[in-house]
């Protein structure tokens, strides 16, 4: 039994009186792919933002590898370097080319030299199949290409775990395939991933575990087979049946 790469213990998050997360505990093993599903407003995205401390939890603790990242005095910027994040809306830096988007973190955060950073950035773009688009600006790329650049940008930081927040929800249906293919490749290369997604085909094929959230708590979790074929909770069954249609 290896030690977990990520461990959440009773994580709460409130905005004023609004309680979004009401005590989530979750353990993720290295190389594991966890797909997080649940109705909108169930707290999936909030949970991802708690994990990389963009919106730190109001209560509860999180460990990344051996470090408690919710402890006071932790350098949050350093923690975020180890956690890649991919957003629904891509959020590519609009004033930079695809190459520039991948390079800037390498230069500013990892303090690499320009030509070193350029080589690595090109390598990451190749990994997502976009080396030929290196000098394009985000506005000149399709949605699927933008999202793949965003994945390359995150990979450039050499993350130990990747978070995907509905990575294909803003895409036209015919473009989701190329993004999912890149994610599947990452998974097969052994990247630890937490994916918020409604792509049930992807969940079935790639996920090691599916976690169903509702109302700010984890209702049920299990392997794709368990979750799709014999979910224990009626709500899980209803949700998965709905989404499969």
């Amino acid at each position, binding site marked *: 039994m290896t030690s977990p790469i990520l461990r959440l213990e009773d994580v709460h998050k409130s905005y004023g009186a609004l309680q979004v997360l009401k005590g989530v505990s979750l353990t993720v093993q290295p190389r594991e792919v966890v797909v997080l599903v649940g109705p909108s407003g169930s707290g999936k995205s909030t949970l991802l933002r708690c994990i990389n401390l963009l919106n730190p939890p109001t209560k509860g603790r999180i460990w990344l590898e051996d470090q408690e990242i919710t402890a006071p005095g932790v350098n949050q*910027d350093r923690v975020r370097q180890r956690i890649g994040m991919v957003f629904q809306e891509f959020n590519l830096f609009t004033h930079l080319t695809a190459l520039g988007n991948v390079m800037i973190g390498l230069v500013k955060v990892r303090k690499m030299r320009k030509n070193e950073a350029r080589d690595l950035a090109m390598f990451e773009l190749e990994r997502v199949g976009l080396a030929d688009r290196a000098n394009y600006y985000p506005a000149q790329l399709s949605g699927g290409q933008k999202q793949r650049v965003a994945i390359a940008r995150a990979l450039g*930081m050499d993350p130990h775990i990747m978070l995907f927040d509905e990575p294909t929800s803003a895409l036209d249906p015919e473009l989701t395939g190329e993004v999912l293919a890149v994610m599947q490749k990452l998974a097969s290369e052994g990247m630890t991933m937490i994916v918020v997604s409604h792509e049930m085909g992807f969940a079935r094929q790639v996920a090691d575990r599916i976690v169903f959230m509702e109302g700010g708590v984890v209702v049920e979790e299990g392997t794709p087979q368990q979750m799709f074929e014999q979910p224990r909770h009626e709500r899980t069954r209803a949700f998965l049946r709905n989404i499969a249609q």
Partner: protein
Amino acid sequence: MELLQNLLTTFNFIVQGLWVTISVTAVALTVGLAIGLVMAVARVYGHPALQMAVSAYSVVVRAVPVIVIIFILFFVISRYVNLSPFWAGALALGFASGAYQTEIFRGALQAVQPGQMIAARAIGMSRLQAIQSIVLPQALRLALPAWGNEATLVLKDSTLVFAVGVPEILRRAQQVSARTFEPFLAFGVALLLYLALTLITTQALQWLERRYRLQV
């Protein structure tokens, strides 16, 4: 023939103020740019107390006529600090322009998509790094059209330093006019010089806008 001779003499005298006008404007715009950028970042990203202080500066300075600020620097401050009329005038204009530029850059910073800051933080940038490398470069591009407008306004406001005796275009025009009793010729030359300066400025800024346009 005599008219042409007059025109040439008038022009030669007034055009010596061209460089002064350009210098006053350049100093004012640069000082205003520095003030505007720092203040706007403080206004948008600073501690609430800092935000209040910046708002106060911006409101007060914009409420005071620029000429009054010039007089304060020239007649009051220069009693304690050695300020030539040129520097009193140029700094006063810069101080005033700083308030307007603060508002220009504040608007531009707020117009940058929030996702840009979030994505920058997500790859491990500190807040300051994200502002420097991601948000500001985009905000500067967004600010260019409004900033170009401010540049032409400061160019024209530079005539105000005439009140403390700086020999710029307008003051020289007035001197010629008083001597030759041909105000039309004198102020006509001044007008043409300002027109030329404004055209050059706007053309240069439009080129910058095209060069650095954000693709959206």
